[in-house]
């Protein structure tokens, strides 16, 4: 009945069942790993092209349009180029660490992607107890990789970039974690599948109970994605690689394939954290309307991912970058308090379950509204509207 939905699951079962029982778990794992290794880098490749094209369009340019149909094979050209470029290791660099750094940056996002449920019954590594924790854990390893890259290059720009990156990653880790905590709190589980399951209840006939449709979920999603942008070094938080200031940050001294690996790692990280956001707030692979449940679940997941990527590209094409102190202040003075408030809102939401719906929104509106107004006032005090006079 739901053949398109479960097609990959069935396919895998079919393939696995060809093998003798003792090796079946291994085959299953290999297949899952293979799928992750095939799908996400492919999406990465496509995303780079689409991003460049979309940025071009935002900037009134056509974007890459030479290689392949409408330029869509550009990634292949880029890949071949980066593979064939000379791999330059600075003489002063710490060559072993320099070599390992891109690997340390690429592997954790791949691991993290393994626990993301991309569709019904489609998760490579199901950790019913600790799925979310595993995800957050592997995310932290990236910091070390970034540091290794920046330090081993023996370049001042790299060092500055690495310092910025670590400060940024450490600071935004906190709001990211705290905004996921609200979900965990209300779901009562660290399992990503359980979190999706929790969001599957039907409200008002059509809308599913995605977390983003609750006040704490909406705010949490916004906070989460802001922090996710920073964790993934995306504009406007791309300070660690701010080219106008520190050339390319921690991977200034990388070239060729290693550079491509950093690029890959960054995008995989973005996918992973976006996928987590989808799972936590946007209902994972659940459709938005019950009438649309005939669409395969994995399509929903990847569709949501695509929409998120589109928004990220859009943001990247619009916003200037923050300064380091503003970045840190934003994390500690805005995101962190707000995510703490969000926790409070989530708790209130939980305790106000018997209340009428409109009344349940009220505390959230107040709790978010007042700090928002305060921030607004503070901003206005710092940046009052200016008028200009003219010489007589």
């Amino acid at each position: 009945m739901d053949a398109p939905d479960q097609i990959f699951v069935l396919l895998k079962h079919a393939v696995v069942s060809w093998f003798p029982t003792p090796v079946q778990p291994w085959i299953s794992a290999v297949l899952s790993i293979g799928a992750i290794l095939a799908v996400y880098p492919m999406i990465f490749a496509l995303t780079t092209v689409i991003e460049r094209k979309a940025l071009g369009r935002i900037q009134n340019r056509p974007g890459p349009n030479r290689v392949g149909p409408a330029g869509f094979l550009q990634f292949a050209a880029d890949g071949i180029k980066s593979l064939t470029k000379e791999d330059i290791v600075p003489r002063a660099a710490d060559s072993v660490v320099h070599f390992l750094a891109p690997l340390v940056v690429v592997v954790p996002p791949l691991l993290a992607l393994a626990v993301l449920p991309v569709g019904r019954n489609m998760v490579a590594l199901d950790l019913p107890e600790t799925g979310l924790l595993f995800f957050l854990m592997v995310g932290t390893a990236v910091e070390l990789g970034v540091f290794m890259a920046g330090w081993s290059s023996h370049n001042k720009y790299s060092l500055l970039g690495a310092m910025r990156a670590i400060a940024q990653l450490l600071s935004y880790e906190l709001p990211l974690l705290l905004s996921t905590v609200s979900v965990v709190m209300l779901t009562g589980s660290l399992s990503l599948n359980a979190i999706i399951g929790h969001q599957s209840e039907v409200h008002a006939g059509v809308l599913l109970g995605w977390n983003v449709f609750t006040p704490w979920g909406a705010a949490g999603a916004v906070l989460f994605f802001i922090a996710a942008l920073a964790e993934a070094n995306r504009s406007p938080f791309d300070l660690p690689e701010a080219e106008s200031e520190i050339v390319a940050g921690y991977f200034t001294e990388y070239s060729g394939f290693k550079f491509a690996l950093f690029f890959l790692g960054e995008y995989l990280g973005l996918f992973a954290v976006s996928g987590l956001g989808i799972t936590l707030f946007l209902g994972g692979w659940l459709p938005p309307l019950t009438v649309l449940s005939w669409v395969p679940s994995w399509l929903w997941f990847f569709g949501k991912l695509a929409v998120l990527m589109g928004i990220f590209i859009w943001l990247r094409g619009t916003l200037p970058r923050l300064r380091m102190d503003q970045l840190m202040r934003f994390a500690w003075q805005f995101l962190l308090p707000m995510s703490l408030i969000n926790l409070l809102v989530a708790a209130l939401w939980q305790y106000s379950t018997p209340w009428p719906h409109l009344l349940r929104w009220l505390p959230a509106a107040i709790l978010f509204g007042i700090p928002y107004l305060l921030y607004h006032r503070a901003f206005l005090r710092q940046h009052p509207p200016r008028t200009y006079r003219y010489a007589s």
Partner: protein
Amino acid sequence: MNPAAAPRTFEVRPSPDAADPVHDGSLLEVSLGPQHPSTHGVFRMDVVLDGETVVKLKPVFGYLHRNHEKIAENTSYLGSMPYTDRLDYFCSLTSNWAYALTVERLAGLQVPERAEYLRVITAELTRLQNHAAVCGFLLQDMGALGTPLMYAFRERERILDLFESLTGARMMCNYMRFGGCRCDTPPGWLEQARSVVTGFGAFLDEFEALLSSNEILLGRTQGIGILPRELAINAGISGPMARASGVAYDIRKVDRYGIYDQFEFRVPLGDHGDVFDRYMIRALEMRESLRILGAALQRIPAGPVIDPKAKLRGFRPKPGESYGRIESPKGELGFYLISDGGPNPWRYRIRPPSFINLTILEDLCLGRSVADAVVILGSVDIVLGEVDR
């Protein structure tokens, strides 16, 4: 042992002067440039950083030095004209004008009215495209990934199209001549210019919607790189930079050169003198330029474009000296010439606004972060062709 085979290991040895914080490692000395994505050409800032805070900044330039003044002293008066294009290669027409103005004063040439109008039109168009591009570059330095820059360039291209059809080149226009302009407008040029000017107004609205209320931009630019009014005056700062610090100094108003006294326009002034004011002053000046352009394109008379007395070959002004200055988009651009009656100027000297405006860079950047230094540099609006000459 072969001395050429240097050891592969690299060790940061403490300098003998251990008290020097640069060498004991607490400060970081970084050379931004001359090949750095944000230095607007081959400019270099030797920056000493404490963390990310600039504690010392030394502007280093000269990488683009072309011996312009000495070449001009060994070239005919006319032969220097194309070189002025290359001073400020964003604004070749205003450089042309400044040089032509100076030589005209030296030689006592009159400029026909149509030529004056053409000069005003091209100069204001130059101002438009320069300011638009500078605002774009400023945002680029802030990491806006080129979107505002691309919008600015889209409009700039339209203006460059106008220049190309008028002068034959998009950037190295070489258009002015002593006593007028090299050639008259091609047919349909004025209409095209009017439509470009109209479109530019719409572009400005969009540009300001994109940027002027953007919180990140406000945060990045307000209160940054404050240039006090006194310092601006004492350091001889001119152009939008001085006006952003509240110095009411616009040579179009002060000198009323050309026919600027026939146009209505205002000179916007800032009160804070920070990066945001410099950006906004440029945006407001573009609006004023649009007013001038509208009027000039409306009123331009027919007639010759060059003084018939002007000689192209064998141009030898009588001995004397003159200083001519105009309000270039970057500030006061002045030429100083001494003629000994020969075919070449005896002394040829330029007062480039970019260079003078750059001198206070360290004052603006000290105590701010590298990111601010880059933005401040972007707001100064320099072109290295003019700085290094």
